[in-house]
């Protein structure tokens, strides 16, 4: 007889017994010990059909294929650039993936991306030993100039982006900042100092309250109070109308990074 011993969507800690019996399967962040399913990560428990899985809430960034991240150039080599990914592993941006324009052989690579430059890039491949290949070819992938970078917990990035980008779109229109969110927890902001300060405050608020319910509404009220302007309910279908700077429509399922 199987029964789940914890409440769904509650916080579970390593070593906690989730279920007994063979009817459920251990998913991500859990393991089976005889007839028990036990947590192996701090996170929120989700029952997905027959599988029990954990959505982690803390940790440093763990690179994944197809993630759009904000990287920092740490080395320029013969064949490309070495990029810091805000994780334990640096990534390689090869010459052929370096830009959508043609880069001649023997060209000065620092004229494209120099040391300490920040770039929006996408992970195209990762091996078991965490050798990472990046690309800069694609919509929204570019070198970042101006603005500022802040770091947030990478596991809170989905809350910052919101459903179909609703949260970040709201912050963008309320503050007037340009914002790009990388999956690795780096966020780029560009606007006037006051706009940037408000956006940073809002992002930090989201980060610290990310596990509350009805967060988007809360942030909406917060932004309305701070800016003194009324914010219309965000509707993604009409996103382009209200925001003339918006170059790209809604972020696709595959393209998780937010951009403007």
């Amino acid at each position: 007889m199987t029964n789940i011993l914890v409440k769904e969507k509650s916080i579970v800690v390593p070593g906690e017994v989730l279920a007994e019996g063979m009817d459920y399967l251990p998913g991500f962040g859990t393991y089976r010990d005889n007839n028990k399913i036990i947590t192996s990560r701090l996170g929120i428990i989700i029952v997905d059909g027959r599988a029990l899985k954990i959505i982690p809430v803390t940790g440093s960034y763990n690179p994944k294929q197809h993630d759009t991240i904000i990287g920092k150039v740490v080395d320029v080599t013969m064949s490309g650039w070495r990029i810091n990914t805000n994780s334990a592993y640096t990534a390689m941006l090869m010459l052929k993936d370096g830009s959508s324009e043609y880069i001649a052989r023997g060209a000065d690579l620092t004229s494209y991306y120099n040391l300490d430059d920040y770039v929006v890039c996408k992970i195209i491949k990762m091996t078991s030993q965490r050798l990472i290949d990046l690309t800069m070819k694609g919509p929204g992938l570019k070198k970042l100039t101006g603005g500022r970078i802040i770091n947030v917990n990478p596991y809170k990035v989905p809350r910052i982006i919101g459903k179909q980008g609703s949260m970040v779109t709201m912050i963008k229109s309320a503050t007037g900042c340009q914002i790009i969110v990388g999956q690795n927890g780096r966020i780029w902001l560009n606007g006037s100092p006051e706009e940037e300060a408000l956006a940073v405050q809002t992002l930090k608020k989201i980060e610290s309250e990310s596990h509350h319910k009805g967060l988007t509404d809360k942030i909406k009220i917060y932004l309305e109070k701070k800016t003194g302007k009324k914010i219309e309910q965000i509707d993604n279908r009409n996103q382009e109308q209200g925001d003339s700077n918006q170059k790209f429509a809604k972020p696709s399922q595959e393209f998780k990074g937010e951009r403007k």
Partner: protein
Amino acid sequence: MSYDKRHDGRKDNEMRPIEAKTGVIPNAVGSAYFKIGNTEAYAAVYGPRDLYPRFLQDPAKGLLRCNYNMMPFSGMGNRVRPGTNRRSKEISMVTKNALNPVVDLHEFPNAVVDVFIELPQTDAGSRCAGICAASMALADAGIQMKDLVAAISVGRVDNKIVVDLDYKEEAYDGPVADIPIAMVPSTGEITLLQMDGEVSKKQLMEGLELAKEALAEISEIQKKALKDKYNVVGEKK
């Protein structure tokens, strides 16, 4: 005069009051605070991050590195000379060995997870407090682990078997044995067992039984502390 009654009025199987918190160091990926009586331990976890020198790298799995440090003012009046010494090196090593059986670093080849344990105040049982704090901090850092490790010291003071000795008891004028124990509560696996002093086999077994009960209690406190960070007061998740 024999030691019939504990000097602070505790029962034989009673620990000093425990306080535990997580997320106390914002800069760290994961952190925890563990206080038992007057012994306080802070643990901070950094990483996974890249590991140098390169010969230390293991392409099969990540490395766990622990660092135990008593602060200069943490002792009983005398200044503890800062920096590593033979004692802290050994404790760092046994802490690592106590935690390694539960953490799984296969996700992080060639990388390292650093655990720093700092003790601002000590009153015996510091390696146990350090291990308790470190295992909470590792969980808070999102590291994959089988279970949390709990640790406590038991021992013999004169002819009494007691749990969680403080400094006064360790320094008792008579036969004393101090046995720090770390255990994985769910499996009963012992990951640290040291001894200083003299005990009979019977006394040791008696002490282990006391430790088991105490460790189950500590484990609950650790789990609660980890959950408390996310369960905001006045709001039901």
